[in-house]
């Protein structure tokens, strides 16, 4: 059986839950189903506001679903399981804590903040190239560096599953490419499964074992694209025909380009 199984998940926000004055309930997620294996990196790709972030929060147990089922590692998710890592679009560090104490926040909440935790935090910060910034304050770091700290905070308790919500969306292109390679390296070293929400086609293809493409709201799974590129990947892979082909399939599923004529490609 698959490590993660999302079956017919539907989410309707009642009018009272919405901040806007809409009287109508909003169907954020119509019908989402997909599966993934342990250690896989899966991208959830779709237009902005299509409900993929909502799905990520449901999988994380942060918000209830209207119907359907989510099973991760054999457990049905109805509330936070406590052993996931979360990375948001903004780094969301605590300005009152130093870099290392931000990473250790996770361990404090889990009441596992011992010397081993501190050593692991130091190792992780080394791994992401921040060894000289353990005692710095978040505001002294660039956006990319802050997001690296957030990544360490999400990894320190050795989660089985990492949930990432457009984590590199606010970064400039070069930093973003750098962070993509860093994420692949970290995944290789930790073996964690990753669900990665993005609206960048090339980022999704570059990172993933499998790309789940969502339609516009109310979101449905439009198609699943297995990416037939071997790991480890480097930036050169972007210029191979296999990469371009996957990008094309994703673009077609998103309606960015018209479907290719059968046989013409």
């Amino acid at each position: 059986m698959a490590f993660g199984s999302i079956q017919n998940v539907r989410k309707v926000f009642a009018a009272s839950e919405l901040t806007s004055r809409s009287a109508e309930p909003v169907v954020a997620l119509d019908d989402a189903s997909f599966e993934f294996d342990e250690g896989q990196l899966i991208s959830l790709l779709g237009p902005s506001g299509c409900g993929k972030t909502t799905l990520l929060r449901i999988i994380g147990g942060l918000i209830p679903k209207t119907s359907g089922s989510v099973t991760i590692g054999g457990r049905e998710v109805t509330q936070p399981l406590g052993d996931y890592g979360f990375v948001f679009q903004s780094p969301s560090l605590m300005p009152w804590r130093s870099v290392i104490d931000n990473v250790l926040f996770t361990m404090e909440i889990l009441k596992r903040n011992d010397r081993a935790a501190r050593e692991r935090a130091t190792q992780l910060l080394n791994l992401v190239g921040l060894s000289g910034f353990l005692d710095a304050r978040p505001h002294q770091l660039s956006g990319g560096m802050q997001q690296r700290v957030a990544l360490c905070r999400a990894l320190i308790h050795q989660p089985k599953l990492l949930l990432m919500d457009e984590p590199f969306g606010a970064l400039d292109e070069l930093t973003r490419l750098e962070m993509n390679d860093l994420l692949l390296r970290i995944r290789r070293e930790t073996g964690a499964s990753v669900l990665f929400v993005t609206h960048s086609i090339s980022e999704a293809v570059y990172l993933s074992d499998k790309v789940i493409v969502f339609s516009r709201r109310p979101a449905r799974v439009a198609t699943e694209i297995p990416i037939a590129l071997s790991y480890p990947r480097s930036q050169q892979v972007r210029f191979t025909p296999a990469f371009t082909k996957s990008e094309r399939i994703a673009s077609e599923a998103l309606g960015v380009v018209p479907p290719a004529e059968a046989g013409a490609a």
Partner: protein
Amino acid sequence: MGVRLAGQIGYPLLGVAVILAAWTAFCVLRGIPTVVLPTPDKVFNAFVARFDLLVSEGWVTLKETLYGFILALVVGIPMAVAIANSRALNLMFYPLLIGLQSVPKVALAPILLVWLGTGIESKLAIVWLVAFFPIIVDTVAGLRSTPRELLELAHSLRATPLQIFLKVQFPAALPFVFTGAKVAITLAVIGAVIGEFVGSSEGLGFLLLSATSQLDAPLAFAALFALSFLGMFVYLLVELAERLAAPWLPPAPQRH
């Protein structure tokens, strides 16, 4: 660097000198009597000659201000926590608090005097009343504006409500608490003086009032300056506390 520093100290001093010169010139050229507006040198002389009196009366006002302010913190912050975390309390009291904030609290001074007498109790009540509102309103606002991601992060780790409060909500609200406290301490000085005006036999407010009634304008002005220094002193105390308790905050913006 040295030139810049000299400018930073020199220009404000120059500004003060210009004001004092204009003040003196106005008094001398227009022949303003001392009982109406004393010249700066007369005020200065009164300040030096009656320094002991100013210090002892100032000490009274300082105590009223600080005790009342601390009382406002001690009551205001726990109440803010209760309101921010309970939907029922929030609905019951928050609109009321916002509404009461615009009531002129000093108008209650005569009533409080009747209830509590002319001692320090009535002053503490007035100071507490004026300082309490900015503290509670800003603290509630701070506790409510915790970044959503930080709350989700804590929930995703199954944090307890106490952990969320101590490690996320409260530290995130601290800058708001200090914003409220800075407004409150300024109001607290005003509250103490109003209390002394309405009924008291000591304090800088009382001294100001009695000096005016005895037509001793230089002493009245000296008391006014002492009050200003006292106000600046307590404000700086709060700012110092902020630097110590929340050193991560960026330095306060320059006020132009």
